[in-house]
């Protein structure tokens, strides 16, 4: 029976995991209730809860091509352009509801990329990766699991290939082959939502050559498999979450997280291995995953929606909303944000069917979209900070506002209008701070820059994918260098 978990069931399912998590040098015994981690759990929980809301289920759910049953879209293999478009819309929706990275897209993108690549490997080598993969997919869909899509290796010296690194573990690799499976060692860096995941799906991070065969591996494991350790990444302003539920945290409910995930001689049974030394398919897996994941940055449009809403609100609180330059800046924010939406819809609408039956979004347009994502959120954030005013970074804490001694001064001197409580002004400023330079800036800004590949990775793909000859032909024909079939 397929189950569509709700937020509560998801939370309970996490409690059953025996994850080995470290933060601030100490083992975290209760991951789910840890105040720093909890907001990120809430954000993933939203992906479950929204699937049950009648007003969102049309985007949040899909029909499994394996069982014909209703499943959470995050476990779905895209069966048409409509699915791809709805994926972009889901990203925007959840971004606008959580204003942070809700972490579940990367696993969905890994599943879709593997559905295509395992099929292609089997076609060439007569292997049975796709059969294994589909069985695994059935398990993920049936249990409505969250998967960490683990691609990025620590990579060591960037100018050297995996096999040439001074430490072989700087890229994930196989260290032992057994009759019942393989043993792997290495790590995956920057893993979004890692400790909120039931599963971890490992993929190679770059193109591998023959000498890198041992590194050309893909597999899935339960997130609490023996030998896996999580070391939580810090986010700016993270310890504000230890101060209780004060408005200084900006976003009162949600957040994201990333972790370094270490695999110390971890056993993987064969039925969970989806690529084993077929180095000639590493590029295919990386590129398909990257195209899907670059589309997934539709979520930033949703976070942009919140930031624009916050900027308009603070302009009104400050009494500056009618100034022509402020109005124009809000227009610019919307223009940039909707331009991002255009990109993620376009790459979905131009999707195509792969031999496996999975629909893949348009690679060129996905790369163009992600390239815009590396820039526009920064500009939107800059304008939000301009409109917000300096108080966003100089205002006293919530505790000062509540202080019997100085609270009255904060209240008096940071009041702008008689119909707007000072606390409301400070709350909206803290939200803008959170998104543009606090914990959520990790997702809105730096993840926009490097997540799914740094800007140069997209530029390389754009150079490769555009049909330059076609453009030159058109130019040469129109100026008479070459003869075409123009009407004269």
């Amino acid at each position: 029976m397929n189950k569509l978990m709700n937020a509560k069931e998801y939370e309970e399912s996490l409690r059953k995991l025996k994850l080995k998590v470290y933060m601030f040098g100490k083992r975290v015994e209760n991951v789910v209730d840890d105040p720093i981690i909890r907001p990120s759990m809430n954000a993933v929980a939203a992906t479950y809860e929204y699937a049950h809301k009648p007003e969102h289920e049309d985007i949040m759910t899909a029909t499994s091509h394996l069982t014909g049953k209703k499943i959470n879209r995050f476990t779905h293999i895209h069966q048409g352009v409509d699915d791809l478009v709805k994926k972009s819309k889901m990203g925007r929706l959840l971004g606008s509801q959580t204003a942070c990275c809700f972490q579940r897209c990367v696993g969905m993108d890994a599943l879709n990329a593997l559905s295509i690549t395992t099929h292609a490997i089997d076609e060439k080598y007569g292997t049975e990766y796709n059969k294994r993969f589909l069985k695994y997919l059935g398990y993920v869909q049936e249990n409505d699991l969250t998967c960490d899509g683990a691609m990025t290796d620590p990579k060591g010296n960037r100018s050297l290939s995996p096999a040439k690194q001074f430490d072989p573990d700087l890229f994930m690799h196989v260290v032992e082959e057994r009759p019942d499976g393989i043993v792997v060692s290495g790590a995956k860096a920057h893993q979004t939502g890692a400790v909120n995941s039931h599963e971890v799906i490992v993929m190679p991070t770059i193109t591998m050559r023959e000498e890198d065969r041992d590194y050309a591996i893909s597999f899935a494991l339960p997130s609490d498999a023996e030998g896996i350790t999580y070391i939580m990444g810090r986010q700016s302003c993270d310890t504000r979450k230890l101060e209780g539920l004060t408005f200084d945290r900006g976003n009162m409910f949600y957040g994201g997280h990333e972790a370094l995930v270490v695999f110390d001689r971890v056993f993987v049974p064969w039925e969970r291995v989806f690529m084993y030394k077929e180095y000639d398919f590493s590029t295919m897996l990386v590129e398909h995953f990257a195209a899907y994941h670059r589309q997934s940055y539709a979520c930033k449009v949703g976070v942009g929606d919140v930031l624009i809403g916050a900027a308009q609100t603070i302009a009104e609180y400050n009494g500056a909303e009618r100034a022509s330059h402020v109005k124009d800046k809000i227009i610019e924010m919307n223009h940039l944000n909707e331009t991002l939406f255009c990109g993620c819809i376009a790459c979905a609408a131009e999707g195509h069917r792969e031999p496996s039956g999975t629909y893949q979004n348009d690679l060129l347009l996905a790369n163009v979209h992600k390239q815009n994502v590396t820039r526009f959120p920064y500009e939107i954030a800059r304008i939000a900070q301009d409109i917000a005013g300096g108080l966003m970074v100089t205002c006293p804490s919530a505790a000062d506002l509540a202080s019997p001694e100085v609270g009255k001064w904060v209240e008096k001197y940071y009041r702008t209008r008689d119909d707007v409580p000072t606390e409301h002004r400070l709350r909206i400023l803290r939200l803008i701070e959170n998104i543009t330079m606090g914990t959520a800036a990790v997702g809105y800004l730096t993840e926009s820059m490097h997540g799914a590949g740094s800007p140069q990775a997209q530029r390389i793909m754009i150079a490769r994918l555009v049909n330059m000859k076609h453009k030159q032909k058109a130019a040469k024909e129109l100026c008479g260098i070459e003869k075409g079939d123009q009407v004269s």
Partner: protein
Amino acid sequence: MRDRKGRPGKLKAGIKYCGGCRPEFDRIAAVKEMKEALGEAIEMVRMDDEEADFILVVTGCKTACVDVESLPLKAKKYISSLSDARRVMEELANKTKT
């Protein structure tokens, strides 16, 4: 006015929303307003409720990307703006009066 089962007056409307990625109006508030205005004359139920007399398809914008093919084969009324909501509300009010 009689419903599908021949009962007088009261109509059952199955509600199907789009996903709501960038709604141009508040879909939930519009349905709530309809519910309040029509009062006893109408009951809002889930779109897959067998007893629904018709389905109200409420979409946040005119793209209306909602998956209507998977909906039960029943009459559908489309709402993709506040004015649509008011028009349908009037239509239903008139129907339930007669």
